[in-house]
């Protein structure tokens, strides 16, 4: 449901094109027509869906355009990769443009694994239909006598319906049809294809990150994602997926050494990424193998340089897998940071004790509850499980250390 965007208070002052960023209050005429976006109810900012509706809810309605979402990978990179795929699939369904950068697998591999959207109303957008839609009135003038005002509208009405809906569901067991996928424009950056030039500067940024940043800026400028770009073309959102930054395959030793030599390469890159995004109609999801980074302070600065940050902790391979407390879930989800942009405070849902489960048709994120004590004897759960509950509470940042069991 797209609420109209009002500009708060005085009318916005005259904007010089150089100063525009994606955080201007959008007036009704300007950007309401981008499919797949909606304004935030709190501060009027433009939001896109991450592809996972429960994650949208936790982030305050969606991912704000111009921000970065950091996903700390789980140990085997299964669920973080899934989130990246949800993000890209949502882009395909909303007709956004995609940019995928990887150093490990070819971006096309990721694109071929995208989950299929659950269609009731997503139209299969056949590219061949497009020329027909730019109607010539002469042919169809006779077709509609009474309703002639509608003759120029595209025939496939459901395309509008899908773009006005925010957030879709995907079936993980099926992959997306190639026709749907190829309808979306996708840019790719595969590191082995880019020869590393030795940069003469003493800048702490690595060549791989510099090349990636340059490629991003080129695409943004060429395809018109700048906020300051002329309004002649219809505006769209660029969805950027950066897989496993900071890993050794990017040339970074952040995950290899306790005291990395390229200590500030990734943080400088993230600073440049934020600078790029703030002035464009783009959103980025970055995954990082944080479990390999030993320096917690460095992880803290990486988190602060991204606007939204979540961490996935899967139970696979840990002793929690067999813990009956966690049998309904696949892992824990920690929300490390949510931004307060353009406002002092925002109302956000509780972020404590969250666990996720990857179901076939939905990626659910729920508050972790103890199962009801249905046994006949009113026996307390064993000490080991209580310890598990306490660990969950403390893992969520500054959570209370109170015991969940109430002693009646």
């Amino acid at each position, binding site marked *: 449901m797209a609420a109209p965007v009002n500009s*708060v*208070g*005085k009318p916005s*002052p005259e904007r010089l094109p150089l*100063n525009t*960023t994606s*955080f*201007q*209050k959008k007036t009704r005429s300007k950007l309401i027509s981008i499919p797949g976006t909606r304004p935030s109810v709190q*501060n009027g900012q433009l939001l896109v869906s991450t592809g996972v509706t429960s994650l949208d809810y936790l982030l305050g309605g969606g991912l704000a355009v111009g921000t970065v979402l950091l996903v700390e990978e789980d140990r085997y990179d299964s669920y973080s990769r899934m989130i990246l795929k949800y993000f890209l699939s949502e882009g395909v369904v909303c007709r956004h443009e995609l940019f995928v950068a990887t150093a490990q697998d070819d971006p096309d591999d990721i694109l071929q694994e995208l989950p299929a959207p659950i269609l009731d109303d997503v139209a299969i957008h056949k590219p061949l239909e497009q020329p027909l839609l730019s109607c010539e009135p002469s042919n169809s003038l006779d077709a509609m006598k009474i309703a002639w005002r509608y003759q120029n509208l595209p025939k496939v009405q459901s395309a509008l319906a899908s773009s006005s809906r925010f957030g879709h569901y995907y079936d993980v067991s099926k992959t997306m049809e190639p026709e749907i996928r190829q309808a979306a424009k996708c840019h790719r950056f595969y590191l082995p294809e880019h020869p590393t030039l030795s940069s003469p*500067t*003493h*800048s*702490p*940024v690595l060549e791989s990150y*510099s090349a990636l*940043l*340059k490629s991003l*800026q080129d695409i943004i400028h060429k395809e018109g994602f700048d906020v300051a770009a002329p309004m002649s073309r219809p505006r769209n959102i660029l969805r950027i997926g950066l897989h496993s930054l900071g890993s050794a395959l990017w040339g970074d030793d952040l995950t290899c050494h306790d005291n990395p030599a390229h*200590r*500030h390469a990734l*943080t*400088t890159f993230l*600073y*440049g990424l*934020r*600078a*790029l995004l*703030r*002035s464009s109609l783009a959103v980025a999801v970055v995954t990082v193998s944080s479990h390999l980074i030993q320096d*917690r*302070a460095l992880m*803290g*600065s990486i988190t*602060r*340089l991204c606007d939204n940050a979540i961490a996935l902790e899967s139970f696979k391979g840990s002793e929690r897998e067999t813990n009956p407390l966690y049998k309904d879930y696949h892992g824990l989800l920690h929300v490390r940071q949510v931004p*307060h*942009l*353009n*406002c*002092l*405070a925002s109302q956000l849902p*509780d972020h*404590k004790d969250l666990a996720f489960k990857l179901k076939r048709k939905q990626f659910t994120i729920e508050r972790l509850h103890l199962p009801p004590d249905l046994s006949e004897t009113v026996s307390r759960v064993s000490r080991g499980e209580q310890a598990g509950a306490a660990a969950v509470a403390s893992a969520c*940042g*500054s*959570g*209370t*250390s109170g015991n969940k069991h109430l002693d009646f």
Partner: protein
Amino acid sequence: MYVELNSILNSTPDTFTQGEFILVSDRRSDASFLIHHFLSFYLRARCRVCFLGLVQSFSHYSAVSQRLGVSLTQAKEKGQLIFFEGLKESLSVLVPRDANGASPAINFLRDPSVGLRSLYEFVRSSLSSFNSREKAADGAEEWGPPVLLVDDLSVLLSLGVSVGAALDFSHYCSATVCSQLQGNMVMLVRCDGEEEEEDEGSDRLLKGLTHQCSLSLHVEGLPTGYCRDIHGQVEVCWRKRRGEGLHTQKKLFQYKVHDKGASFFARGTSSTVL
């Protein structure tokens, strides 16, 4: 600006201590709401403000200041505010499109080992041109003492600048802005992790700046855990007080951030508790 904070700090836009170095710091929390307070405070006090906004875009600060009743765009046009937008300037270094066009102040991104001297030169030239007796172009305004605001200093550490260089930068800014020009300076430093851990970076920076400052506001989460209605606690520490004796004074308050401001109250007196 937040009225309760003004009474805690015993300052109003008409009367405030000059020559102060105010250090705002946080540990696992977010103290940027205090930066918005000081920005609107000093603009209302008709001071000339140089703002180094290194972590967010201009429109973010502008939107928040609008809610606090101050227009940054107007202040910029009047010449009262000089805004250095770090994000925008950094792109010209990180993704160079043409040879020139980068402000020399951002030179530290090219080679962080050089230090922050050029950034200091930028601050000095911006604020020295404000002679407090000089009238603005329209002839009607007279500005108060110059003020420097930095948000924030720890991001420089993430960009490769050493702690020593950051401390030298703050030393020189304090010497010029606070001592020489009798203006005020507010800097934000953010820390992660516990205090006892050996963190070479932001903790050492925080300690060094604490030695230099005259007033420090340290924001932390509540020691008892998360609370929806109390967002955290602020420890205010007056270090140097000229006329009133030589001792340091500390006070602890709890706070809650609203849509249009923040309220401060003594420990345990939050409106949800009472």
